């Protein structure tokens, strides 16, 4: 099967619609960011306290909000989590711009207390099995088990507690709704089951994670993220300027910058949160977009060696057409893997996969319709009097292009053996 054999589309001639589309998207993104008062920060960058709680039934957001309102000083937000694997999960958090770290700590304790008071059975004197740790379960069960005639050594008790919690966490996402679900725990018998029912109850929620970001660390993390992105772009610019002409490097970097800006704008438009993993996705997509651009530039450079008299635009078009098959295949395949992540990757990777889904689409077209036109504009501007492609002549020859061509001549002999 072969698609895209010997195509001859005039990509660079049709660049204007895409350039305009890019500008529109960029402006839309910025407007969205401006209107919404900045970017929506996720866990790593948002100052405040955050808890991820899984409920045994669709979580009653309003009830939680009302309960928190009375007990917690700072404003509490309750949000449902989306994505596969995030059924009945909520994110409860306080956002605290400028609040002292001690306030955040207090907030967290208050929120935990409210959950226990509203949904738990604090007055019963029993232990909440869905919130217990290995040590507390062990300590709780020791005496009752001895009294119930099921004496255990310390090690046996430790193992039993560990097994119970393992089944709870690995098979039931940390939330047990019925004691019978524990019948598969190794080492369990009727006596132990009875003691469990006596000493413990099952709260309908389980806190899966807590996060707290104080203002000091929040600010540092944000600065680091920006630095990472800028340095990465600079590093790539340096490498490409070294391998090609500097204008190619600049074109590639502008294209990547454009991809990043549009993706961030889309995040704002669709109300998605930006966390450190999203930054990782952005940097990946910068690398990926660079790849695409390099492949095309490589081809342009190769073609320029053989067509000194043709206009640059024609040479570029031919390069794009020649690499079209590869571009579509690679983008398509990478897109397939990223879509798999988006659909099945779960709530934690949601932002990450969304960034990549948008980024791959934008990154692919930016190599053709942003990076190449920039080089084209520059050369047309600087070489107005001449019609032929200037990039090969004299001192502006792409550096580093000679060795590969030469090495091609040497190797055929090896393969012929």
């Amino acid at each position, binding site marked *: 099967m072969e698609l895209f054999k010997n195509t001859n589309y005039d990509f660079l001639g049709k660049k204007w619609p895409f350039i305009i589309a890019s500008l529109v998207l960029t402006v839309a993104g910025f407007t969205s960011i401006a209107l919404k008062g900045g970017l929506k920060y996720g866990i790593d960058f948002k100052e405040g306290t955050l808890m991820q709680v899984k409920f045994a039934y669709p979580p009653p957001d309003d009830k939680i909000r009302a309960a928190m309102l009375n007990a917690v000083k700072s404003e509490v937000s309750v949000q449902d989590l989306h994505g596969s694997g995030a059924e009945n999960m909520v994110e409860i958090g306080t956002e605290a711009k400028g609040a002292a*770290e001690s306030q955040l*700590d207090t907030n967290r304790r208050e929120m935990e207390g409210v959950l226990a008071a509203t949904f738990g059975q604090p007055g019963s004197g029993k232990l909440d099995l869905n919130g217990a740790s290995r040590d507390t379960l062990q300590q709780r069960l020791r005496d009752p088990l001895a009294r119930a005639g099921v004496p255990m050594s310390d090690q046996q008790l430790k193992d039993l507690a560990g097994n119970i919690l393992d089944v709870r966490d690995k098979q039931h*996402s940390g939330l047990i709704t019925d004691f019978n679900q524990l019948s598969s725990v190794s080492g369990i018998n009727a006596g132990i089951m009875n003691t469990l029912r006596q000493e413990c109850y099952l709260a309908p929620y389980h806190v899966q994670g807590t996060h707290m970001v104080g203002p000091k660390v929040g600010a540092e*993390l944000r600065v680091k993220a920006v630095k990472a992105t800028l340095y990465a772009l600079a590093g790539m610019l340096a490498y490409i300027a070294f391998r090609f002409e500097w204008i190619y490097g600049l074109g590639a970097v502008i294209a990547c910058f454009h991809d990043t800006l549009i993706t961030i704008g889309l995040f704002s438009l669709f109300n998605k949160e930006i966390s450190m993993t999203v930054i990782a996705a952005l940097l990946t997509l910068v690398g*990926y977009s660079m790849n695409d651009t390099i492949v095309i530039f490589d081809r342009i450079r190769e073609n320029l060696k053989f067509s000194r008299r043709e206009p640059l635009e024609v040479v570029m078009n031919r390069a794009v057409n020649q690499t079209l098959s590869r571009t579509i295949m*690679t983008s398509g*395949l990478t897109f397939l893997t990223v879509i798999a992540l988006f659909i099945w990757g779960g709530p934690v990777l949601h932002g990450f996969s969304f960034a990549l889904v948008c980024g791959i689409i934008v990154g692919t077209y930016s190599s053709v319709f942003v990076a190449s036109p920039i080089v084209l504009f520059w050369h047309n501007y600087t070489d107005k009097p001449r019609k032929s492609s200037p990039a090969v002549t004299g001192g502006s020859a792409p550096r580093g292009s000679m060795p590969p061509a030469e090495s091609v001549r040497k190797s055929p002999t090896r393969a012929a053996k």
Partner: protein
Amino acid sequence: MSKNLTTRTVVIVVVILICIFGVIGFPKSKADLIDNLRSNIRLGLDLKGGSHMVMEVQVEDAAKGDAQQTLEQLQREATKQNLAWASADVNEPQSVNDVDKVTLTIRGVPADKSSAFRDLVTATCPTYALTALNTTDYSLKLKPSDLEDLKRETVQRAIDTISNRINDLGVAESSVQQYGQSGSVYQILIQLPGVDDTAHARQIIGTTAVLSIVGVDKTHDTFFTSREDALAKLGGIIPLGETLAKMKPRPGQQGDEWYLVGKTPVITGKDIRSARPGQDDVRKWQTSFTLSQDGGKRFGRYTGDHVNDKLAVILDNSIVSVATINERIEDSGRIMGLSSEEEAVDLGRYLRSGSLPARVTPLFENSVGPSLGADSIHQGILSGVAGLLAVVTVMLLYYKRSGVNAVLALALNTVILLAAISYFHAALTLPGIAGVILTIGMAVDSNVLIFERIREELRTGKGVLAAVDTGFNKAWWTIVDTHVTTVVSCAFLFLFGEGPVRGFAVTLTIGLIANVFTAVFVSRVIFDYELSRQRRLETLSI
């Protein structure tokens, strides 16, 4: 050619074997297989569950404490020399940044005694620099180098104490280290992989645990119900050298309990050599402790003089236990009446590790329970498998037999990646799994580059051998360029990122490096093998 081909094939087989061994060892059964897998591939905090905390050591506490101790020393020495002043105080630092501003101010030194005063200061506290504010008032501050020493020691002692407490908790692979961020060297990073009770861990780490055992006032040795109640019964004045302290609330207690206790401790945490939790005859929890020689003598003298009086054990300004002295005790004792096993065990931990030299406040925390981690692993594997299947299907359909070539290279790539993670003891995080999945997509790119080139060369009429050769050679530099740029990107992610993101950078980088090997070397070998088996090199299934 066949000899060259054989050598290369052997190299590949050896690499495969080393990698498979790295990932699953020599399993003798299925359970063994899973065990080996689990121990070889280390899971990051976000997949295993655990806690990652950044704490700030409030070094200004230590500076203030030092200034106060110096003041007391000065006052003692001054009394010996009949030197006196009107008033003295230490200012109150508001935050860590104020540590350099901690000042001891002494006012009202008689002008004629100023030289005696200066001599006293130089003799008693040489680490302090004296500045005259006017003829009678002076301010003292720690000299800069001594202040630096104090800051450094405080942070180090905090790290050591917290390390001891955490090791005592028994969290495997936990770590406590200095965390130098821009602007602050007072931060500590604590990592507790697999800890399942983060609330308890937080408590253990954050409790300053200043312990003192003081005498309870002889005449008023029962508790008061509130501060006001106490003042009323004492006639509005608290006796000199004594203060009011509150009992820590216990389950079943009706209302608050306040006691009138001495200010100067008989025993402090420094005098305690070791401690152990246990149960007494009626199965109530207690913590027994042994004292140092010095402390033992002091304790012996005090208890000998105060039989039938009461003692109060105070931890961080709350009374933990009140008990009557039955007889003279020399070198050990028991803190009784604790409410639970956990309290007794924790108290033992605090006594053994000592108190923190300054408060620690949490600046950042990321805690994930093991359930979230297990869910994440399921989701990661599911999407990985889905993505892989999609890619394999498309490659086979589009490139036919050469597609098989690519799929084999891809499989080897994944195996090498997992093995490298195992050998380098890198932690696999959820973004790391995403990195593995992304590597699949990017690895395929190299193959696509080569195959498309080969197709092009074939179209120009080149022979199969030449086409394959040219395809590989022309694609080589492009492959290098694309991989280097993504690796550069990952390098910056690694530098600026934390835990999970670093895992991503590492897995992607390893995957890309492995890919250069599989896509170029291994693919080539497979092609050459296939071509060497054909009798007439006319067609290539691509």
